């Protein structure tokens, strides 16, 4: 079947108007030998049939509603208020496109403007763009922007705690541009020392990939003294209670906005948050909504500073980005408005308290340690080391409908006994206790 507007009778009338015999005549420009291939595809299905198939495919995914998962590592299960999907699902938002005709798209452009405003406030930054594909591509584009903003500098320093997949994406983006990536360690003095006269920027993730919080006071000044920019990659939820990236002197701030009302959805679509200072706005990639007035002097919103972008500047554009994550920015705007400052602080505080409760209980399980036994500040995620391999622990806990975390060997093959455990506000004490019970039982079984 196809979602077609016309009937056979319509098509006959239209062909007659075109003085054509058959629909096939419309395709005479196409090489005859290659025209109308037989496609080896399964036959069409009705809506009812496809929904049955979707149910069957859904059943092939493990778990089900009883499954308790503590996997985070860049994608987090936070509570999503009901109104987020309800409002963002409206066809007037979902089936519009880029607001090229601003007068007929004020819903979209004003939403972007409000998203920019709220995220700017959250980050303590002056300018936020209308979004990138995800946190990883936001980091990569921040690196490119830093190179373009600091003349004659051709390398970037990545702190050790940057998400390993972000590191990979940055490498994909930067290599063809001849920008070198250098590893910067994790301690503040190591990071500063890695910045030299060829460094365009230092990129630091906080909380880092392992959930650890770093004291970044003074870092920006030290980086600026060496003529480089500071890029901070943050968890927007944590920013509700932590010193804002703006107050820490960051020049560019990126974030994964998935935590702001977007489902984990097996890896996407997410939301690349991107912010900078006003003085750097003309170097910024991505769309921007701005306020203006209409012919009667009333307020309205338009896409602005378009001369940075590919559709105007072509090969000299700040990026090739066109389609962004507009609908995800809408979700984030609804989420932030629904929670407000108090609600967002409560989400962040609950994450902190519940993660620390889970960590302290797991640290008491015989043979287990948390964060290498060090008293490191962390936010909603921590490293659990167990006497079993992480894979065995995960397999054992799966029998009890618990996924205790991510095996870090996925990214660090030598870390066979370490898991990254994420605990957000949506887990009750009883669920955290179930995690602890599962880990206790599985590690105990093997030790016995």
């Amino acid at each position, binding site marked *: 079947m196809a979602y077609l507007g016309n009937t056979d009778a319509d098509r006959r009338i239209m062909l007659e108007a075109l003085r054509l015999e058959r629909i096939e005549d*419309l395709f005479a420009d196409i090489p005859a030998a290659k025209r109308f291939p037989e496609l*080896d595809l399964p036959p069409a299905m009705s809506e009812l049939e496809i929904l049955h198939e979707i149910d069957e495919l859904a059943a092939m995914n493990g778990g089900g509603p009883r499954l308790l998962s503590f996997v985070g590592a860049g994608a987090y299960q936070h509570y999503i208020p009901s109104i987020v999907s309800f409002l963002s699902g*409206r066809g007037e938002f979902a*089936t519009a496109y880029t607001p090229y005709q601003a007068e007929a798209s004020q819903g979209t452009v004003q939403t972007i403007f409000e998203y920019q405003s709220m995220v700017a406030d959250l980050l303590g930054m002056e300018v936020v763009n209308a979004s990138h*594909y995800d946190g990883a591509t936001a980091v990569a584009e921040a690196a490119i922007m830093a190179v373009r903003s600091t003349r004659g500098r051709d390398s970037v320093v990545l702190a050790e705690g940057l998400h390993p997949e972000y590191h990979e994406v940055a490498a994909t983006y930067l290599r063809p541009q001849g920008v070198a990536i250098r590893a910067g360690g994790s301690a503040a003095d190591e990071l500063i020392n890695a910045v030299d006269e060829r460094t365009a920027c230092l990129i630091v993730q906080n909380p880092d990939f392992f959930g650890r919080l770093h004291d970044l006071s003074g870092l920006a000044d030290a980086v600026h003294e060496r003529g480089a920019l500071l890029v901070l990659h943050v968890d927007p939820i944590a920013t509700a209670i932590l010193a804002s990236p703006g107050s820490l002197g960051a020049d560019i701030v990126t974030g994964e906005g998935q935590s702001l009302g977007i489902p984990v959805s097996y890896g996407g679509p997410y939301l690349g948050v991107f912010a900078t200072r006003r003085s750097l706005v003309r170097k910024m990639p991505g769309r921007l909504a701005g306020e203006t007035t209409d012919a009667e002097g009333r307020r309205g919103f338009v896409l602005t500073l378009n001369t940075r972008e590919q559709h105007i500047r072509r090969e000299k554009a700040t990026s090739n980005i066109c389609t962004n994550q507009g609908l995800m920015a809408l979700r984030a705007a609804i989420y932030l408005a629904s929670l407000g400052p108090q609600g967002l602080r409560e989400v962040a505080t609950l994450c902190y308290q519940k993660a620390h409760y889970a960590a302290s209980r797991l640290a008491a399980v015989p043979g287990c340690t948390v964060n290498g036994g060090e008293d490191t500040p962390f936010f909603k995620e921590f490293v659990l080391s167990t006497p079993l391999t992480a894979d065995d622990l995960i397999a054992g806990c799966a029998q009890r409908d618990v996924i205790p975390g991510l095996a870090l060997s996925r990214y660090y093959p030598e870390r066979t006994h370490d898991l990254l455990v994420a605990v957000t506000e949506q887990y009750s004490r009883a669920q955290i206790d179930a995690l602890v019970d599962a880990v206790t039982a599985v590690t105990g079984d093997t030790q016995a």
Partner: protein
Amino acid sequence: MSDTKKEAAVPKRLAANYSFGDPIPPLLYEISRDGRRAVRLPDCDVPQIDLPSELLRADDDPLRLPEVSEQDVVRHFTRLSHANMAIDTTFYPLGSCTMKYNPKVNEVAASHPAFANGHPLVREEDAQGSLAIMYRLQRMLAEISGFSAVSLQPAAGAQGELTGILMIRAWHESRRDEKRTKILVPDSAHGTNPATVTMAGYETVEIPSDAEGNVDLDALRAACDETVAGLMITNPNTVGLFETRIEEVTRAVHECGGLVYGDGANLNAILGVVRPGDLGIDVMHFNLHKTFSTPHGGGGPGAGPVAANETLAPFLPGPVVDLTGERYGFRQPEQSIGRLKAFHGNFGMLLRAYVYIRMHGPDGLRAISENAVINANYLRKLTEKTFPAKYDRICMHEFVSPGNRYEGVTTMDIAKRLLDYGFHAPTVYFPLIVRDALMVEPTESENRETLEIFAEVLERIVTEAKDRPDLLHDAPVSTPVRRLDEVAAVKNLKLRYER
């Protein structure tokens, strides 16, 4: 505004910030009141410890966000939605964007908890359903396009373009062919093409179009030498025409040692009609949000999977999904250019496209393109007196007309006046090879009556352009705001709410 309408208007202060038909609602910040709130969270049920005070927000760095009730939020965004034109409300013939109907069953499937709540880093054995969808979509896209392998990683068309050019680059590097520095791009191309070339570390060489709207084959041949890494070509091209000599074009590039990238922006015209892989294209991207009906979302998200022939398949970005026996799993292609984004692609969009393709089958896909093309040609015929297509031949899914035929009114005036008639405007001032272009793409989901009414409206606008040009200059008048001052927006840059 008429005098009666003026007199009847409710004073702004008394209109509870909004009345039906009024301009856009105020900002959430402007209706915020201290202490008002929407969503409540559970009390903390675990023992509480002190927060790390030295890392917290300082008093002079307070968290500022709007404070509003849940009803405030619902009304705000519902009212904002009313200020949008969308496919769900009106004809939206925005050329090159393929604004077709977006089936609602896609949304039902994507919101299934087993998929929406599926974490990207669970074990493969716990995600066999999601992986099956990805694997099958890879195979179906490869079959539709005539290629051997597909990666679903890229998040949007522009990222798909970058992927393709990086793959071409990696292929040349793998052969130690380091003298190639240029990518050929026709002058009709989307801006993303040359911008992509720059991001991939290459130099753009623009190739002119000929009088028929195709690539100028002589100019192309003259540009083909040992410094050319490849060509980016959109086919059908941005003036809505099929490159009649596409096989000669791809051969010329191959003969000089380059490869050919196919921009799949206009695939909606050729589903089941011709396969890019059969025409000498080496690698291409799909825009799932155009051809395969995933919603455009006011600017995104999209998805830009990339397909490659056997030569380039080893360079695809990973991970890709394989089927071994009965088990689906991820694999990194041997000479992969690496990752383009975190995790595995915009899965929610992939799932929607899967549903769409499964519901159509091979005959349904061909019917999409046949109807998209007949609709475009019928509309081209209906407007041949008012807005004749720049190239007088049968078009594919869209056509482009110069908008500067009527003295004293601009293409933009025509576009804005269309909004008053309740239609979204076509794409304007693109492609650059047609002066003051209007680019019209009706898609297959529109019916004949809509096209006829649209053509009649264009006739009226042409009459107005002669008799009442002020109606065009002053347009739009029926939208929530009148014509917006884009120059002032740049001059007096306001990019966020200022207290």
